């Protein structure tokens, strides 16, 4: 898994490329958590993430909980319909909003800011 970070209009966009599973989880957690700060605005883009395992879902959930504690706002973008369905069916979708594109996510989070 490759993790790239970009700043766009005061929103941190994190691009995940590859499989988000138990092997990738520690790296992803480490890279994302440094951006989970009070009042942060965060987008995790999944356009190049073709698979999320149980461990991967749990990483996203932990990020969501941490963000809620810190008062940050965040969203996912560009997840495949299958990944969105999996998140829904396994109950992992309650803590975030999904946007079709990074641009949508950035503009929504920026507005909320």
């Amino acid at each position, binding site marked *: 898994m490759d993790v790239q970070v970009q700043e766009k209009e005061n929103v941190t966009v994190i691009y995940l490329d590859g499989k988000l*599973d138990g092997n990738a989880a520690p790296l992803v957690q480490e890279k994302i958590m440094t951006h989970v700060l009070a009042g942060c605005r965060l987008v995790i883009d999944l356009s190049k993430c073709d698979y999320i*395992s*149980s461990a991967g879902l*749990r990483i996203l959930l932990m990020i969501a909980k941490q963000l809620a504690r810190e008062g940050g706002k965040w969203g996912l973008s560009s997840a495949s319909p299958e990944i969105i369905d*999996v998140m829904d*069916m*396994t*109950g992992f979708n309650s803590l975030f909003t999904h946007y079709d594109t990074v641009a949508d996510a950035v503009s929504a989070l920026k507005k909320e800011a």
Partner: protein
Amino acid sequence: MLRVDLSPTHTHGEYKLRVGKPLPFGATIVPGGVNFSIYSRHATSCELVLFEKRAPKPCAIIPFPDEFRIGNVFSMIVFDLDFENIDYGFRIDGPFNPEAGQRFDKTRILMDPYAKVIGGRDVWGQAPDWDDIYQHRARICFDDFDWDDDHPLEVPVEDLIIYEMHVRGFTKHPSSGVKYPGTFAAIREKIPYLKKLGVNCVELMPIHEFDEFENSRLSPVDGRLLVNYWGYSNVGFFAPKAGFAATGKFGMQVDEVKALVKELHKNGIEVILDVVFNHTAEGNERGPYISYRGIDNKIYYILTPEGYYFNFSGCGNTLNCNNPIVRNMILDCLRYWAADYHVDGFRFDLASILGRDQYGAPMHSPPLLETLAFDPILGKCKLIAEAWDAGGLYQVGSFPAWGRWAEWNGKYRDDLRRFIQGETGMVGVMSQRLQGSPDLYGWLGRGACASVNFVTCHDGFTLMDFVSYNGKHNEANGENNSDGGNDNYSWNCGWEGESTDPAVNKLRAKQIKNAAALLLVSQGTPMILSGDEFGNTQWGNNNAYCQDNEISWLDWDLLNKNKELFEFFRKMVNFRKVHPALRSRTHFQNKDYMGSGYADITWHGTKAWNADWSATSRTLAFMLCGKHAKEGKAKDCSIYVAMNMHWDMHGFELPKLLKGMLWYVAVNTDAPSPQDIWDVGEEKKLGNQGEFLVGPRSVVILTGK
């Protein structure tokens, strides 16, 4: 916290190891690795077998060093495992001496009896690779879940309305209109429907991992594949059926089931699991080695003195439920489903087997049943027994209960059916059934709710078939119509099977309404078979265990066609919920202990206060005094129910109410829809307060207020 036992002490090839913890059994994620623990009393050695997920050959076979065994338990921590991507099993050596009950075979790879996720049949109906050396693969499971504030609902048992369903059959039919038909996720999509119907509990037919391909075969009649569709044959007791999960192909079935339970709870609906502890999918001596047989045959199964399998289950073997080891496994299993899945209760298939000793003899006070009755974690769970087995034990009314166990009341089903189809000699026994069967449960602190009342269940005719067929039509099962019960007490209303005759269909609809009305005014806990509320048919098949097709799948188009039935059921369910007089936990006392002027229940007939108890009677009526609702703790109006199961109309003289109170019509199954049932609050004031003409084969319900 720093610990001194988190580092490896041994190696095996590239694998780093340490002695494990014997408890809990199974595979547990621990800091840095996975703890594997398995019991076998008669094993001489044990190996852990690891596969990359779905790989045909193992990537490692790690013997448990002798110092890793404590007592009869082998336990080991393996460090740095990519546990999301492995399958694990065991190979166990020991004596092969069938006459002495031992069948160890160190060449077999055995599934962990405590496996929380089981692969191998990940997608329903996908043909397995029969050459695979490890068919049912234990996998490692995350046991965390974001439950928020979810908690088992603990709906008082007297207020429960159970809805029995097959996870796949509920939504597999294309007419269901869900995104992932036949899955746990699809049930979530149907929650609005369940709420509309008004039930507050779903009872799921077996959802433990089973093998739909067990004894699969082509039907000699139509060439269709017949499978183990119902799933009353466990591969593993701790793992949900992967093939029922839309996410089973990703191994996420645990989270999918938990998400379903959480969502049902959020909507006020409890979850009861139908659990099958009477046998396993290993069958008899000709069956496969899946797990138990190769781990410790003699411990897990009840064996004949010659070492063959006793068959009290009718399925080849009998789980040795009152062996202390097996008893603990069952307890661990139920605790796991209650604590980790927030399940609200259990219905035990062929539960009488759970009361047999290690030689198969029924016990007076079976330790397993007592343990479950008093277990602290299961303390608020509903425990429901199917109080018979295939070995001839029939314990309806006498199941060892300790005031905790309820029963599927098979006598209720049979008596109600016989009464509805117009048999004589039934009014006396019907009076018992309507009261929560005090003749069966009036002892030992059991009460009305020890009786789970039902007219139909998965096993037997659907309600529509009960009024459409005189006999079973199981030809499609490929056994020359010899399978399935013959004691259906059904009546086809004049024509066998589907009919275009309006008179036949009108009578059928009325008989269905009669059954629904009586079920929902009976004391005890009612259970509705899913689909009955819209007239689902199995075309006379009363044993559809192998039919993974339109025979078993609910046809949701019927909901539109038979709207009249659905509306009747929906309003009847609501009627029950609104009237606490129908939901007493204890049996009636047949006296006026509230000083209302009326006893809690009184019996009537065509003449008020004078029921016809004669052998030729087909009429009966009763009145519940609202002041006695829930033993006087709840307020209700009076309820009068008249039952005329004769083919002629009869006038029923009505009991007089206290001054100023009047009778209102809530239900009259003889009236055309929508006048057959009135919404609560919309009941019609009766013109003639002295008598009601009850139509042929009809039920009338009045409220007095």
